[in-house]
């Protein structure tokens, strides 16, 4: 099996942050968009902060056929439909900023 360097693996990780007023179907809709785009969900955390629903998803895009940009646009469209704020970022920014 082909070995992938840790750096390459980390390049394929994305973090999706969803926030807004809690309602039915948020997780389902976001998860559907990810499944449609062949993004594997590796971890999910969710919480309520100051009456707002906040969800974090860790995704792996190594099997995705579409580009990061297209996946991001699809997620943002879903966010608009849900009236939720969605941030889609490569995970490296968090690794770099918060670890020494």
């Amino acid at each position: 099996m082909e070995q992938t360097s840790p750096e390459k693996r980390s390049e394929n990780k994305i973090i999706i942050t969803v926030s807004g007023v809690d309602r039915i179907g948020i997780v389902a809709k976001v998860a559907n968009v990810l499944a449609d785009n062949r993004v594997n969900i590796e971890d999910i955390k969710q919480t309520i902060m100051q009456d707002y629903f906040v969800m974090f998803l860790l995704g792996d895009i190594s099997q995705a056929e579409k580009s990061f940009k297209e996946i991001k646009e699809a997620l943002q469209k879903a966010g608009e439909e849900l009236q939720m704020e969605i941030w889609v970022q490569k995970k490296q920014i968090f690794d770099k900023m918060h670890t020494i």
Partner: protein
Amino acid sequence: MTSFNADSILETIDMIRVHHLDIRTVTLALSLRDCCDSDVKAVGDKIYNKITKYAKNLTSMAQEIEDAYSIPIINKRISVTPISLVGESCKDYDYVYLAKVLDKAAQDVGVNFIGGFGALVEKGCTRGDEALIESIPEALAKTERICSSVNVASSKAGINMDAVLKMGRTIKKAADLTADRDGIGAAKLVCFCNVPGDNPFMAGAFHGYGEPECALNVGVSGPGVVRAAIESLPKNTSFGEMANKIKQIAYKITSTGELVGREMAQKMGIPFGIIDLSLAPTPEIGDSVAGIFQAMGLEHAGAHGTTAALAMLNDAVKKGGIMASSHVGGLSGAFIPVSEDAGMIEAAEKGCLTFDKLEAMTSVCSVGLDMIAIPGDTPSDTISGIIADEMAIGMINKKTTAVRIIPAPDKKAGDKVVFGGLLGEAPVMNVNTLSSTNFVQRGGRIPAPIHSLNN
């Protein structure tokens, strides 16, 4: 399987969304030394072709990175070899023509400023340097994107007072030729002492002599983030703890900048140069260095204690940055431009912040007297006096200092100038009206200082 820390994610998003953390500039630094020719038109063609070849993907690559990390990249810019050197080989000098070529190249690749229309003359001027300085006011008046800088002093060479005299007149003329826009020409012109050759920030960016063929230099900013971090501490937090907090934030900002810089350089197939962490304010509310002084406990910028606050801030920012990257460079530290900082503007308007206090602050900030509007009838010899003072601070303290002041045509103290965009707006500030003429017109150089007996 990898995991993540939700608090870190929220902190990052907050830094970007609420506190204006951004990549202030990605600057392509490019040598134009191979563009020399005896025919000025040929020089222009070579310059245009080289810039448009190297920078053609600059804005699209920046957009890609912005998308990947959701961090705004505000400016895409280019810095080049000091143009005095490139144009000097021509039989007939025509630096205004070269400025127009640079402007066109910048426009065609979609960058908002191109720096390097300048010269390094701390010890003396060549004929090309003199012709370039002579051409600066017209070049700035006839172009949109050109930034000009002239290094007139250094700790090793002393202060070239002939150049200081000339620059006083040049600044005045640059403002007068753009009188219809409040003298904006002078807002794109800066005099330096100990200028760094890898600075990505305008107006002083240029590609220094010891630099490689090309490099990608990145400038990150975030005064709002630093202010928020200080405000999150209890009011009685000691200076040591406050300095630590600033270092931690500076580390985070710099790491992010380096990630962006390295990835962008790799995409463009050029070397990564340096990361410059400069707390560069913008006119937006909350993105203010003056706001940091208030968070530290001063009533307003200009209060006694401001110089000490700035000294600590500037030093802590550098320390945090150094920890995050081996290639911190440029002007790293804290900028104190007046017109670009809502808090500084307010302090100046209220009279809390005076020109003299700003001069004192420049002895510990990362650059110098920056974006200060002064009365339009200020004699050019007085401007030369201001430059000489500021250069002396840099020369003696072995630091970079600079002067970017705007003698606002037909305006007097208390009036307002408006440049718009990142250059902002500013109240016209009083300067001392005593004459400096007999001093600045002596000519020659102020000798380089002794580098021992540091007292």
